């Protein structure tokens, strides 16, 4: 649809009607004042004709609201910068061929769930034999050697181990995001690698349900992978990045 017009607005039941649903809780006891406060907030969000369609006192001086309004904002698609990861994803066979033909040695990856995060399923989805959604994990790739350190690994341990294994890539999973603990944790890892002088020597990758490529790059990573990632996407990125560095001389080699 946007091919025609790059400026888009929300669509409820008609083009550009601006329909948006919101819900939130305000620290006000339910009543007319609370509803007016909710409408005022919606107006500030740029929602015209704000309607409180439901409100419920939650006790403790809190009230929950559901509202609808007509968004007065619009987005010009032409102005959006979407950091894209890569052109094309290679499959299992192609990745291994690529490694044999262009890198000529096994790729070593070290993965961990760092900090206090014990959610290993996401990382396992990428690393384990079984893989994810029918796509084999990196352990099954003959041209990869995988070291999966599992859960609750301190950043220090991960860095030490990566150096020890001569890792080409470090894969970190962060699932718990409450109070932005993942941001602090990932930032610390990047700094630590920098401090150890090994940052340039590895492809540094973060993943997790609330991780986007954009965010990861912002935090000093080479790539970020969000929900639904398949192992071959990650493998493709790693080997292409290694190849790019080899060609451009970015990485000093061992």
């Amino acid at each position, binding site marked *: 649809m946007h091919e025609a017009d790059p400026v888009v607005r929300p669509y*409820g*039941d*008609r083009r550009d009607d601006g329909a948006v*649903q919101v819900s939130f809780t305000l620290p006000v006891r339910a009543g007319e004042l609370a509803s007016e406060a909710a409408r005022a907030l919606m107006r500030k969000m740029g929602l015209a004709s704000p309607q*409180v*369609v*439901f409100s419920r006192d939650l006790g403790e001086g809190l009230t929950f609201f*559901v509202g*609808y309004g007509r968004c007065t904002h619009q987005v010009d698609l032409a102005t959006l910068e979407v950091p894209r990861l890569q052109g094309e994803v290679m499959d299992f066979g192609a990745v291994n061929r690529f490694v044999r033909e262009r890198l000529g040695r096994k790729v070593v990856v070290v993965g961990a769930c760092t900090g206090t995060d014990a959610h290993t399923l996401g990382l396992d989805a990428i690393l384990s034999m079984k893989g994810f959604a029918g796509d084999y994990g990196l352990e099954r790739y003959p041209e990869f050697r995988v070291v999966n350190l599992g859960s609750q690994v301190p950043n220090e341990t991960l860095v030490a181990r990566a150096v020890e294994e001569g890792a080409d890539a470090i894969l970190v999973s962060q699932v718990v995001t409450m109070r932005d603990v993942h941001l602090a944790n990932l930032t610390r890892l990047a700094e630590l690698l920098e401090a150890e002088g090994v940052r340039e020597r590895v492809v540094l990758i973060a993943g997790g349900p609330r991780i986007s490529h954009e965010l990861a790059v912002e935090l000093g990573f080479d790539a970020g992978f969000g929900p639904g990632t398949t192992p071959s996407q990650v493998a493709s990125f790693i080997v292409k990045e290694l190849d790019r560095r080899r060609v451009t001389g970015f990485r000093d080699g061992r």
Partner: protein
Amino acid sequence: MTETCRGLASGLRLDPGLVREAREDARAIVDEVLAYVREHTTTSMERAALRLAGVEEVDAEGTPLVNLVVDRLGDRLGHGASYWLFNAVAVTGREPEEVARAVAEGELDLGRLPAADPARVRQLGTGAARLAMEAIDARRRERDVMVERLGQSPSPWLYVIVATGNIYEDVVQARSAARMGADVIAVIRSTGQSLLDYVPHGATTEGYAGTYATQENFRIMRRALDEVSEELGRYVRQVNYASGLCMPEIAAMGALERLDMMLNDAMYGILFRDINPRRTLIDQYLSRRISARAGHIINTGEDNYLTTDDAFTAAHTVIASQFINEEFALRAGLAREQLGLGHAFQMDPDLPDGLLHEIAQAALVRALFPGCPIKFMPPTKYKTGNIFRAHLQDGLFNLVGVLTGQGIQLLGMPTEAIHTPFVSDRYLALENARYVMNNARHLGEEFLLRPDGRIARRAREVLERAVAMLRQIRDIGLWQALEEGMFAAVRRDRDGGKGLEGVVAREPDYYNPFLDELEGGRCGA
């Protein structure tokens, strides 16, 4: 579905004697009304005949030619508009539509033309009626072929509404819905259309909370749904509404444009639009004759009773009305497979064991009307702006639908209490239904109802009360029952409401070759 309903229904232990009694009473009630129907016609019935004769256009002001012709005929309508039309065709040698246009432009006065040879008039009339039947039959065959070729979903079919007011936007939403799993798309009508004593014309983009039902809009949607059906490899059905002051005309349009279902209730217009009872009960008869021929599934409107009356205490009124609607339908030539009798999931969510009562009612309807698809309507009355709870209410509704083997599931929307559905509401509703029904597909086969349980007892009690109600209506007659507010807690006088002026006694020589063809000699018997 059959296994399912046998499963749950057998546990209800209904008394077959009571069921027989209900049907006998319904027959007596309907007999009395049909005796009246047979002696009368209505402006809309005559306009429908003209439409079937091929008159579809409007005049310069947008007034349909069929209205102009019927209005000009005035007193003469009792002889049948068809008589005057085909007399004019015989005399002038013009096509029906040309005749109608000439009348509209004041160039021709049907009543003043010389009377042609009656045999010639009849020959022309019968010829036109047969052509009309052929056209309808052709559309029906078309549907059969497509269904055969493309296949269709298992029941319950997922039925959603579109209601943007703009037929082109409706198309976008309908296609999106079909892609997301909808089996049936209903284009809701604009508020107010049912009280218009004519059918608007052409493609329309300005309805309120619905889109005008016009023949052109029917075509536009049909084309879109046919395309998407081909794309999906699954036949997607189209629905519109044959209620209001133009029941038979819209049924005719639906027959000619291959709609698959029509909302068509014998009493909805009376109760919910305050349309005159006589007018509606005459109109429903012809409209159903047309739908019978067209292979429409009709949807009756008993669900609406529970929006004005209480679902728990008035549950039996739904059942009583279904027996009456069934009888009216059978007498108009509809087959059981065409009877989407309506009921609804409308118990107060705060009612303890409310789900048991909903299951009781749904299983009862299934048990009483085997062979009928049965249309199950979602919770609406007790929806609030709490879209999360609303979504859950719909989830339980979908569960009951699949558990009890309903045929047509009209999906509830999380935003029911707020606005006509957004495109995303329809997505959520379809996802809800697919999730619940897939997850509980064979649940109905797993259980035997305890015959002494709350569900079975409740179902038997509702049936008993329905039968008592039918007995009472049989005694006082349907007209009187409507006056006493026995349905939907609404009282309607047989001589009150809109449109009585359109009721006309048939003259002894009343002529309607379309009705004759549709009845094939079996006039509501």
